[in-house]
């Protein structure tokens, strides 16, 4: 199929669909579909934040992403993707570009922290496993994330599986296929009609993580439960209910024999005078009808990590991670944009956590 012809049709499809769901929202009817769309749209925020951090020079980090992880062409990959996105959906591109116009340092610092933390951890696990045996990464709710490209380039023994809502994977598939450089990097095969791109090293799965049977059935087709498996949930569990997220964790940590789970999420805060979480819930509900059902349940590092018990876990908040960044790198960050105060950064970053889980023996 040819991209040019299809993109217009799909633009139409997008628009009509969104008009419908908008009306649903106005009537305060929170249908499953509109909730799904609201959560799915958080991907554009993540993408805008990442592009903004790249734009200002926070990413790629020379010491973490370039030197340690040996990432190549990080900025170029993102710019190519953005270009491709403009061809596929002007609406989404416009959204991402618009929020780029003003980007506060505090947001760029936070994006930097989450990105380099996950990248560094992934690289650490992969280099420990070595390049001899097969290994797979499952990025749950991957959205527009592009870390599979440098990782697949660096680890020929790696298979990368991106999982997200159909709406999200559809766009990603088109952008990747429509961008020759990315298409080649991922060795993509021409997709069948109504199918998503795939290759021997890369799979893009459409599914709703709330539907555990569907998720497991689709993962079963493309993954091997007997090889080391790294699961990523970056701002994903926070949108799920307590039961659904727990079932997902239990099922996948049982399914894969040897595994690592890397999770990044906000926590509400456990101190009695801490109102950050309740205000965050109210702000997101008022401004975009976005719910975070477990923000106040797993409101501390301990409670968050406990979801993975009895597995081996270690958890830090992002402020703790920030405080261990070497002085040279801090100096570099400071030279990019003037950070006028640390108090706000501290409040925000103490309410986001980075959790590492390990089970089974390599």
């Amino acid at each position, binding site marked *: 199929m040819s991209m040019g012809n299809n993109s217009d049709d799909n633009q139409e499809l997008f628009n009509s669909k969104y008009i419908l769901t908008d009306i649903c929202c106005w009537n305060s009817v929170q249908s499953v579909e509109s909730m799904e769309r609201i959560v799915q749209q958080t991907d554009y925020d993540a993408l805008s934040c990442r592009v903004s951090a790249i734009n200002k020079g926070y990413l790629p980090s020379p010491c973490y992403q370039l030197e340690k992880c040996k990432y190549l062409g990080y900025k170029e990959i993102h710019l190519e993707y953005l270009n491709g996105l403009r061809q596929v959906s002007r609406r989404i591109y416009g959204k991402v570009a618009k929020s780029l116009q003003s980007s*506060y340092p505090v947001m760029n610092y936070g994006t930097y922290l989450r990105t380099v933390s996950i990248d560094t951890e992934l690289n650490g696990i992969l280099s420990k496993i070595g390049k001899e045996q097969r290994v797979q990464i499952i990025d749950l709710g991957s959205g527009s994330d592009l870390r599979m490209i440098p990782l697949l380039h660096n680890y020929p023994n790696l298979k990368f599986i991106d999982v997200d809502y159909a709406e999200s994977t559809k766009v990603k598939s088109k952008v990747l296929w429509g961008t020759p450089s990315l298409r080649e990097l991922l060795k993509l095969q021409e997709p069948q009609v109504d199918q998503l791109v795939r290759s021997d090293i890369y799979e893009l799965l459409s599914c709703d993580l709330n539907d555990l049977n569907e998720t497991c059935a689709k993962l079963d087709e493309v993954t091997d439960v007997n090889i080391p498996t790294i699961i990523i949930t970056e*701002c994903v569990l926070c949108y799920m209910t307590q039961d659904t997220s727990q079932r997902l964790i239990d099922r996948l940590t049982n399914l894969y024999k040897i595994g690592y789970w890397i999770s990044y999420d906000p926590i509400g805060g456990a101190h009695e005078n801490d109102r950050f979480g309740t205000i965050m819930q109210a*702000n997101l509900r*008022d401004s975009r009808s*976005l719910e975070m059902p477990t923000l106040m349940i797993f409101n501390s590092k301990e409670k968050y990590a406990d979801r993975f018990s009895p597995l081996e876990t270690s958890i830090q908040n992002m402020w703790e991670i920030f405080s261990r960044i070497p002085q040279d790198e801090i100096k570099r960050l400071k030279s990019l944009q003037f950070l*006028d*105060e640390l108090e*706000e950064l501290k*409040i925000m970053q103490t309410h*986001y956590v980075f959790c590492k889980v390990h089970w089974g023996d390599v």
Partner: protein
Amino acid sequence: MFDLDRVISLLRQGRHITEETVYALCLLSQELLMNESNVTHVNTPVTICGDIHGQLHDLLTLFEKSGGIEKSRYIFLGDFVDRGFYSLESFLLLLCYKLRYPDRITLIRGNHETRQITKVYGFYDEIMRKYGNSNVWRYCCEVFDYLSLGAIINQSVFCVHGGLSPDVMTIDEIRSVDRKQEVPHEGAMCDLLWSDPDDVDTWSLSPRGAGFLFGGQQVQEFLSRNGVDLIARAHQLVMEGYKEMFDNGLVTVWSAPNYCYRCGNVAAVLRIDDDLSRSYTIFEAVQPQNDVGNTILPTRKPQMDYFL
């Protein structure tokens, strides 16, 4: 000429002010501020207010909870603009009060009252959104250059936005600074607007990249050398609204509740009475909607607030 009371009424409602009116307002304010000294003398009783950061509705609450400009005297410690959605209205309202009641309000410059910082932290973008050009931002920046650097209450309380400077031993030395300029990157004027108190033995580098950290010893020496009892400053978010340090020789006052609409802190103002006693008034952020469900704060925020 414009009708000052009418402009005040419009500003209190967060309504649009024409570019011409802003220009006239800024010009008058400049003339008034030009004649003030770097460190203004203020008499008790007076209410000291910390950072406002464009939170107009919370500024209105501040006046409501502390007697109001019609009845009380105020010192604002700076940082009127940036971060919040109503930097312009907040700053202009304070300027209008200054024009209307010149001896009842003292405005001190904060580290955000500069061209460089407002370009990054929201005020410039707000003006571009509201006017489509940067003229109003330029007029306001001209006024920033004329704001005082400090105030002294009854020869007993020294007020400043940030804190002390290794280049300033006596309050008199501040008087010789040429303040009518963009805030420099170093030196006395910069430090007064940027420095922070901390648990340090001596002058130390600030993690902010401007100003210094100073400790209890620097504060005690400054107080005794200048014969004052208290340094009142703002500049740092305090979750409880205020924080006294160094045997009550220094206080941080913070007046932007639920800072950036997400930090969850309360705000405070400090009243100094004729007998120099201190009393704090704590207040909460205005609710996003009033009791009949009408929106007070804009729901379409121009900025992403969280990591999603």
